[in-house]
């Protein structure tokens, strides 16, 4: 199904800045990005890599649950499911078969800030992946039956991950409590009522507004010749018409003035759990990287302060952990702990706050800083191994920060964090008035008919 290109092709192509060479020390891995923008606004990033006979593609659309309106929570993700229900030349479900039955792998994912679709296949299937992605970008088939089918699948996804799991609702309720701006003040999976309310018209409108070439980034990594691949990409995508830019989302998040707190009764939980969040900063900022280092020190791995204190020394929790969430808008610093029997949630909170205070008053140890940096380096370097993880990362950095080359520079940003930075961000963000606390308590189970004989 080759298309004849109706437009002159070549646009501006530039190789992104080369990392300054490392004179000494550990070997760095550089990802050699080439970037082009098609006439219709589709941003194309390619990385030619002949180390394995595979090709991976991602299309990252600049839309996520942040773009949803009241009454339609969960819609961006429900829409993502519709992208697998067929287009002009691909039948419903045929996408799965074409990818998996040719030895490939794929998925689509939605978060607050973007939606992505990706496939990895043996390298001789380049035409196939371009066909699959361009066909649905240009001609999604939308029917009521398909919408109802995927509404069901998504509602089961919600039950599987949220409603039928212990503590499942706590995270969702916490998110609603942390944020004031509706953009982040609801879960990605959305409410059952809103999922039920979604219509075919909603799907068509969303498709037209957000699934336009000028609102997407195509990333291709693998065993191909760049010029040849670009020609094919132009053939497949350049005739898809540009649409007006989607309206910008107001991401302003007001300063929090006081601690927020909620207790959740959970019939599926067996032990109390404490979920803390401190409203912090957007991703890819100096303070964000400092908070990531802080998270490693406080709650990363068995050497972390909270693991040593709460799991090993005081034996108060079964597990403790957390992370600094990376968002385009304001992200939060999360900590959670599941309690052992006969432990009070306020005692857990007290220990955590004491450890946070220590981070404010004293610089972290040398080995702790080293831990955060080495762990980050190992994770980043390992993520460069496979084509699929590179297309996902590059597409995300392009859409989030307009900086696909962050895949090469991120390590330097983490390496720049100092002990003083960690102490400074602890004092700036990990303060009571910035905090949202959700306590989950096991609720006595109602007797069901099963145990009582009706």
């Amino acid at each position: 199904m080759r298309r004849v290109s109706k437009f002159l092709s070549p646009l501006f192509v530039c190789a992104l800045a080369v990392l300054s060479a490392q004179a000494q020390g550990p070997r760095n891995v550089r990802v050699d990005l080439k970037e082009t923008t098609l006439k219709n606004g589709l941003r194309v990033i390619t990385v030619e890599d002949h180390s394995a006979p595979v090709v991976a593609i991602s299309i990252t659309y600049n839309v996520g649950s942040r773009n949803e309106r009241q009454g339609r929570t969960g819609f961006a993700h429900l829409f993502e499911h519709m992208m697998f229900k067929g287009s002009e030349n691909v039948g419903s479900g045929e996408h799965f078969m074409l990818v998996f039955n040719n030895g490939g792998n794929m998925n689509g994912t939605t978060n607050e800030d973007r939606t992505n679709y990706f496939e990895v296949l043996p390298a001789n299937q380049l035409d196939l992946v371009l066909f699959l992605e361009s066909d649905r970008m240009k001609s999604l088939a939308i029917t009521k039956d398909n919408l109802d089918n995927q509404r069901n699948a998504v509602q089961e996804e919600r039950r599987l991950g949220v409603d039928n799991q212990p503590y499942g609702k706590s995270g969702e309720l916490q998110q609603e409590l942390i944020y004031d701006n509706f953009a982040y003040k609801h879960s990605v999976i959305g409410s059952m009522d809103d999922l039920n309310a979604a219509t075919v018209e909603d799907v068509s409108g969303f498709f037209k507004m957000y699934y336009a070439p000028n609102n997407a980034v195509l990333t291709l990594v693998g065993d191909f010749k760049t010029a040849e691949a670009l020609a094919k990409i132009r053939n497949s995508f350049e005739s898809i018409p540009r649409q007006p830019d989607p309206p910008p989302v107001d991401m302003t998040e007001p300063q929090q003035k006081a601690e927020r707190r909620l207790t959740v009764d959970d019939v599926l939980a067996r032990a109390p759990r404490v979920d803390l969040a401190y409203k912090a900063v957007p991703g890819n900022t100096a303070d964000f990287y400092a908070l990531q280092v802080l998270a490693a020190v406080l709650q990363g791995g068995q050497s972390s302060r909270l693991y040593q204190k709460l799991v090993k020394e005081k034996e108060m929790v079964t597990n403790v952990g957390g992370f600094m969430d990376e968002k385009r808008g304001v992200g939060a610093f999360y900590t959670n702990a599941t309690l052992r029997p006969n432990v009070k949630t306020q005692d857990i909170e007290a220990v955590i706050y004491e450890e946070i205070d220590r981070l404010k008053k004293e610089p972290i140890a040398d080995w702790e800083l080293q831990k955060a940096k080495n762990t980050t380096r190992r994770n980043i370097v390992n993520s460069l191994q496979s084509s699929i993880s590179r297309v996902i990362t590059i597409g995300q950095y392009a859409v989030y920060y307009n900086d696909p080359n962050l895949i090469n520079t991120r390590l330097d940003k983490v390496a720049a964090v100092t002990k003083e930075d960690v102490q400074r961000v602890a004092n700036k963000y990990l303060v009571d008035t910035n905090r949202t606390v959700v306590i989950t308590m096991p609720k006595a189970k109602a007797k069901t008919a099963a145990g009582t004989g009706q």
Partner: protein
Amino acid sequence: MRIMKNRSNIILSLMLIVLVSSLALGQGGGMPAGQQPQTTKGAVIKGKAPVNKEVLKVKLPRAQEATLKNGLQVVLLEAHKVPTFNMQMVVLSGGLADKADYRGLASFTASLLREGTAKRSSKDLAEQVDALGATLTANAGLSSLTSTVAASGLVENLDQTLELFADVIRKPAFPQAEVEKYKTRTLAQLQFQRSIPQFLAAEQFQRAIYGSGHPASLIAPPADSIKKLTSKDLADFHATNYRPNNAILAIVGDVTMKDIMPKLEKAFGDWQRGDVPTVSIPPAPAQTDSRIYLIDRPGSVQTVLQLGTLGIERTSPDYFAVLLADRVLGGGPSGRLFLNLREDKGYTYGAYSNFGGSKFRGTWISSSEVRTDVTEGAMKEFMYELNRLRNETVPAEELDNAKRAIIGSFALSLEQPATLLQNIITQKLYNLPADYWDTYPQHVAAITPADVQRVAQKYIDLGHLQVVAVGDASKARDILAKYGKVELYDAEGKPLPIN
């Protein structure tokens, strides 16, 4: 356990079905994908997409091997794309070496390796491993052949990581205070697991297949074993089984044989051999007639369903036929279960089948999570698909697609050195032929529709099908009763009166 946060996928996991390995498919013209428009249950095939018919031939990297004087086998797979490494000490004694009245000892031993050595405390180890940005883990299953200690890290920290790795493998101290902490921690975690419906389903399913005496009847260590655990028991298990002549050291990463051998000599050269008792492999028990187990989990909004039977040993001559039958039935989003229960019916987020085999027969299981009020419909479709696989020959094109899926994925495995290394370990553990992964594609290609039907009829033995459901029993009980007598349990595994 992290709760699902802020992200949803079209299907459950990215690398859901990563098959494996190997090279040069001998067959000629490739296997044609369907180009005729047609409709499969759950999918519409327009056949217009440009598919390259050729199944890409890939050449697997060769592993290098060496043996230290004390008998330690070393396997190295060089992978120089990124400056990291991954190493596994595979000790050839696992849960199968446990005594019948002390299930879990191999697992406890592995878990406590990191809790102190002759010269390092638990905290020292945690700090030193993490400061290197390395990982160091150890585990053994309740019915595993092996115990595995694994380390990974940056090559610039290889020497220090290797020293820590060798220290926990060779000189664990099992401090009594740490043993006590481990016991209370593990007992609390077992309580937590009981809140997860998939845990309850898997626990009952293993019991249904393996009865009460076989090690595979357990998925978590019994509380009795945990409570009686002592430092001496751990030290004894370690001293008996953690011996160089009873281990394979498998390494993958940015290292060369020439560079690493002297380091391995230094770390493990003076590790003493030992006489390791041979473990007898308990066969799976004779199967009971089909039974239905319902676990009442009040508050559930879904029924977790698992249906299955006894499967095959890893070395079974039926392996490749079962591999393809399983792929057709439920090996991912292009499998029949997914297309039927999700894409056609909308009952679930996913429906899959799985099989596994060890030196004893494993299980072959179909599973899904469905909202409570479609439990009946889901049972009907599961039975329909199991019967269809038994009663009808798989269309040639569908089987060819399954073959292409498996053989084609070998190209992807070249970007997954850890997977390639795992394949080599599997080949060694089961004494498979040296060219096993090289000839794997030919074996896959040779399977016929009749082979698939034969193994479906042989192993999906409906007279012995075991069905486990976890959910709201007040709603699921009557539905399941249509398929046979229902046995009711609570989440602690205690029988409940049925009416």
